[in-house]
């Protein structure tokens, strides 16, 4: 995040594959593979904005998705159907084209120390690339809590490289267990002077955020906010910073999640202001 910014580009990309991971009456999950954009560089934690070229103007905005993985041939995203837009995206077929701009935003820190990855549900998406690109994979461990069976998520691609503890939350009580596990694992990481990286729904992130402040452990959170532009122009996606935010003029004020985030240091945020 301290380095020179990575320049985004806009590209029209062909869909090469769309693989369903699992259907549920509420949600379905897909891996979407696109032709690789001409990116010079990208870093895990960054995201893209995506809009199918077949859309007419009824749906006004593109949709933000974490970059899951980039190969020499392709850009891979992992998404769940959440509403109207993702429902349409799930209908894409090979050779359909989409407009993508990215890579956007900040990325997760890579440090040679014990690193705990905390993923909630679809928040697992950015960690696939993070783990694969990490130079010292044996420093990494993950805790993944999810509401649907494990095979709905791209867990296998992670267990190939690192140790993953998963919790399938089926009942309300399981949530309490998740919160306890997060606390306990963050305590261990704090003792080892390690790093915590978290991505998931807002209540999940708030839990991690509170623990990070209490335990004074280095932690980064990837935030999700409604986004219209993804490039800092609309001011729709802001998150409120804490007094510790390095840009003093913005400390305690709203900053764009799409350009100053989505990955923030926990202590630089004030999630209570949301």
């Amino acid at each position, binding site marked *: 995040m301290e380095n020179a910014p990575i*320049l*985004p*580009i*806009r590209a029209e990309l062909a869909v090469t594959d769309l693989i369903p991971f699992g259907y549920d009456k509420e949600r379905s999950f897909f891996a979407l593979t696109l032709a690789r954009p001409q990116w010079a560089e990208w870093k895990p934690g960054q995201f893209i904005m995506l*809009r199918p070229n077949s859309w007419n*103007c*009824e*749906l*006004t*905005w*593109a949709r933000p998705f974490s970059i899951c993985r980039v190969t020499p041939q392709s850009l891979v995203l992992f998404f769940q159907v959440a509403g109207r837009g993702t429902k349409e995206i799930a209908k894409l077929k090979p050779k359909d084209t989409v*407009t993508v*701009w990215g890579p956007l935003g900040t990325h997760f820190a890579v440090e040679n120390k014990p690193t705990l990855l905390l993923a909630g549900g679809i928040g697992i998406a950015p960690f696939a690339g993070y783990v694969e690109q990490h130079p010292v994979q044996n420093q990494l461990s993950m805790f993944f809590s999810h509401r649907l069976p494990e095979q709905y998520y791209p867990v296998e691609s992670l267990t190939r490289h690192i140790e993953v503890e998963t919790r399938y939350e089926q009942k309300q009580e399981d949530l309490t267990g998740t919160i306890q596990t997060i606390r306990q694992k963050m305590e261990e990481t704090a003792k080892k002077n390690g790093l915590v990286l978290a991505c998931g729904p807002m209540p999940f992130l708030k839990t991690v955020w509170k623990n990070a402040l209490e335990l004074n452990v280095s932690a980064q959170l990837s935030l999700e*906010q*409604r986004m*219209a*532009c993804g*490039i*800092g*122009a*609309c*001011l*729709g*996606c*802001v*998150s409120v910073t804490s007094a510790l935010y390095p840009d003093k*003029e913005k400390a305690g*004020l*709203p900053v764009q999640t799409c*350009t100053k985030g989505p990955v923030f240091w926990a202590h630089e945020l004030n999630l209570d202001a*949301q």
Partner: protein
Amino acid sequence: MINMHTTLRAKNGSALELKTPVMSASGTFGYGTEFMPYGDISKLGAIIVKGLSLKPRAGNPLPRIAETPCGMLNAVGLQNDGVEAFISQKLPLLPASEVPIIANIYATSAEDFAELANVLSHEEKVSALEVNISCPNVKAGGVLFGQNPLMAGSIVQAVKKNAGSLPVIVKLSPNVTNIAEMAKAIEEAGADMISCINTITGMAVDIRSRKPLLANIVGGLSGPAVKPVALRCVWQVAQTVSIPVIGIGGIASAKDVLEFILVGASAVEIGTASFTDPAAIFKIIQDLPGLCEELGVKNLEQYRNSLITG
């Protein structure tokens, strides 16, 4: 290729010279630099930056935006770093020698509007002011000024008096009973140009959480959904005033640009379309000469206001 050059003449004879009649709409193009990866911003007719106030403003709480059929609602609430930060940090980054930079200004009193005008009139890199008396997302000032011809007139006078040689564009709200009457009052108060429309007050709710989709409850509607309303407003205003009218509202293609010019606009601003695709404004600018050629439009000024109503 036909020439898209457009001159917007102010009352004092000074003029805004635009390479193309297509500008960015305030609040949808950041400070211009955000769009540099997606096109050459010096090719724009003008860059109208995010609304500026005297002091920094934190804006409204989240959520601030919501998607609606063919449009969106916003209640950003004029978050900005204040005019000083704009002048010291943003303005130097802009290619002002190649493209006119227009400062969109907002205040809660005629005095503050006057001071903003005064501060900006000393900046060589600023080519014009656009006075926002039509924002529906703020408690004080905003659209209340734009709904009262007397109040609007006094603000226009205050800004004009302090703007030096800068052309003053006044941005109108569609949230009025009679937009032609407002336009007339604003022309008489000395405005050099009128732009319209700002957003239409709207609302969206979630039936499950029973909450509004915007923390501010109401917000401003923009995008293709409002285009018919915007075209009607521009047409009514252009029939009423003799100063240049700048059309705004749901423009997403070169065809839309010509629609606004046909009903009387001298130039246009692109707003929400820049969110749908950050390259939208560059594509519109690129497509416009070709579309004119296809239609046999030799000259935009001749096409302007040439609607056949008989």
